[in-house]
């Protein structure tokens, strides 16, 4: 079986989909968002020092079997709460072979699966895992192509095509949007976002994730440039304004996943 590279596993994850979940963080991401709060997940191959050391966790290079064992530990909690596993990252599609096999093993065991993804991957790869995903947590950030490129390092066209394809095929989805003052939280971006999501088949739920500065310490430690030094978390009023705005348009809105 293939091996994957995991930089964290979080049990009792309660903000990554329905119920009590285990979130598996896969290493590597093709994007470079200014606000990324998992900068340790960006490198393709983890330097051991970036991997949180913990005796009792299977972190680092792991087999599908190991990760499934880890996921199965909380089976009863998933059953009780309608939860399951969430694969997150980084961008989990980077390690698509490992992801595909892990998802398949979860499905075989009747475990609910969610995929927290940017959608930035070739369409055939996205398609190849879609059947084993019960719920997509699909990140949309900036609707404007140029701005998207500026703040994430990549164009959004592939991301938008994939999301249309997935929803057209009837995949269940929640859209997740990082809420960042002056970057994603602008009139123009929010308006275009609402328009875009309205056109998606069967998507009615949007989760806004307010920007927070938890990662600033990590940036310092990892000596990665932090471009967000003058951006502050949105105020409660700002967050509520966005919530109201989308609720008025008939969306189901949740703050913070």
């Amino acid at each position: 079986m293939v091996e994957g590279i995991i930089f964290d596993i979080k049990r009792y994850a309660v903000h990554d989909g329905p119920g009590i979940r285990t979130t598996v963080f896969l290493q590597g991401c093709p994007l470079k968002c200014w606000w990324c709060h998992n900068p340790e997940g960006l490198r393709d191959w983890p330097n051991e020092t970036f991997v949180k050391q913990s005796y009792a966790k299977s972190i680092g290079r792991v087999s599908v079997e190991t990760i499934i064992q880890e996921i199965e530990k909380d089976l009863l909690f998933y059953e009780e709460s309608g939860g399951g596993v969430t694969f997150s990252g980084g961008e989990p599609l980077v390690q698509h072979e490992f992801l595909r096999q892990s998802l398949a093993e979860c499905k075989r065991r009747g475990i609910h699966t969610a995929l927290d993804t940017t959608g930035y991957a070739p369409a055939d790869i996205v398609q190849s895992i879609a059947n084993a995903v019960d719920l997509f947590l699909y990140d949309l950030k900036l609707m404007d192509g140029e701005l998207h490129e500026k703040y994430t390092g990549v164009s959004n066209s592939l991301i938008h095509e994939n999301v249309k394809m997935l929803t057209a095929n009837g995949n269940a989805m929640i859209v997740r949007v990082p809420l960042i003052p002056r970057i994603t939280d602008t009139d123009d971006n929010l308006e275009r976002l609402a328009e875009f999501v309205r056109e998606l088949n069967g998507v009615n739920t949007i989760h806004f994730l307010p920007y927070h500065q938890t990662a600033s310490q990590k940036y310092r430690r990892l000596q990665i440039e932090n471009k967000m030094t003058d951006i502050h978390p949105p105020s409660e009023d700002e967050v509520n304004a966005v919530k109201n705005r989308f609720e008025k348009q008939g969306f189901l809105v949740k703050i913070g996943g």
Partner: protein
Amino acid sequence: MAARETAPERKEELREMARICERVPAHAPQTFWEALQYYWFVHVGVITELNPWDSFNPGRLDQHLYPFYRKDLEEGRLTEERARELLQAFWIKFNNHPAPPKVGVTAEESGTYTDFALINLGGVQADGSDGVNELTFLMLDVIEEMRLLQPSSMLQVSKKNPDRFIKRALKIIKTGFGQPSIFNTDAIVQELVRQGKRVEDARCGGASGCVESGAFGKEAYILTGYFNIPKIVELTLNNGFDPHTNKQLGLQTGDPCDFHSFDEFFTAFETQLRYFIDIKIQGNNLIDRLYAKYMPAPFLSLLIDDCIANGKDYHAGGARYNTSYIQGVGLGSVTDALTSIQYNVYDKKILTMPQLQELLRANFSHDREYRRRFLNETPKYGNDDDYADAVMRRIFEAYYNAVDGRPNVRGGCHRINLLPTTVHVYFGRVTGALPDGRLAREPLSEGISPVQGADRNGPTSVIKSAAKIDHIRTGGTLLNQKFTPQLLADDDGIAKLTHLIRTYFRLDGHHIQFNCVTAETLREAQKSPEKYRDLIVRVAGYSDYFVDLGEELQNEIIRRTEHAEF
């Protein structure tokens, strides 16, 4: 007073009080108010007689009062509001409870006198059906409004009870005063039945004091004292010699340097354990005989079934059931200590037994490396790690086998439970450094909770580890979890915590208690992060370990928590 009173309403109220006090407890109560007054007279009687119960309490209050409540409502004698007020007055009586002075270790741990009255809500009825009623919710309102330390309160949660019952309680818990705690009725019933009680008696029972299971009104179950299990590791490491008192306290089970396997070490540990349990049981029997002879409790004997029928005093085995509990303390500490010996000395051969003995003798004073390994790179109980948890099970079996079923002199037997009250602090003070990296004199772990800061995989793994204990063969275990109120901020958070509790109970867990932490605790965690590695806080849309956060963010959360407090 009534004669002098001019306000007609108050005059009438005083008259009614006088009438009730004339009537109960000589006659059976007929109304809600009479029932409350009846109980209070009984309570005062019990605690002034001898207070042998220490934690005497009205038990299943919502069950007992419900028929009176319904009848009074139907017959127009009572309104919900009036019942609420009477209950509030009842709560105040407990809070103003006459307090015998505390002395010695007990006084040092906490100056607050608590009588450990624990009011049980919910659970099942004698026929096994759902016991939650309107009065249950009314009492939860009273607990929330009064915010009193005494009486303490708890939820009995059966699989038959509705979720809304737990959710209502979590809304109180999140306000951060540690009440109510949550118990598994289905486990309690099984525990009591396993001890040989009738199923109806078990269903009408519950937990009193901290977490102790008992058949209310039919059982004399005595907590005979706490047992420092980690100390046994220290004694085994020193061939029965106690470095603290400089005396040969235990048996000479052999110099551990001569042991070739962990099994040999464990056998020595088990021999020491039995030796001290034997002493404990001899002492218990002596005390029981003294009580029976010199401290009869005739008033209490009137109240507890079958003292009268048996013609025997409560202290002499008159009750239907007669249990003696020995409370094991420090399960987390002893597990981690023995796990470290197995892992570092015998399995991985990181160091030798003489080296370990030397480190402990010196309280790790010249060492950095080994202690770091013990703390960070050795399996620990509380992480759903089968290596450590298997050691825990072995210790549990040893403790259980040493105690369970051994006769007391009241016609019953000894049983185990695992709870510390506050004695884990005192026991820590008389226990030297342990192989898990704990320094001498530091507190032991409490209840069945992991060692402070040893659990790093979140609450589901703590629950999984704790559920590897066979709770059904105990008479109560105590598990503490820390949460910040933000984690319970919305309905979603409350629902998920409800699922967490349900899962623990599905795994036969006995009790769980959520301490919503205060800003003060967070400040403490900032200063000594190594003790608070398990502390989870809600950061923004997500939760994280508090000690992993940057300082600025920690400060922000402290401010936020302060804000949310009362």
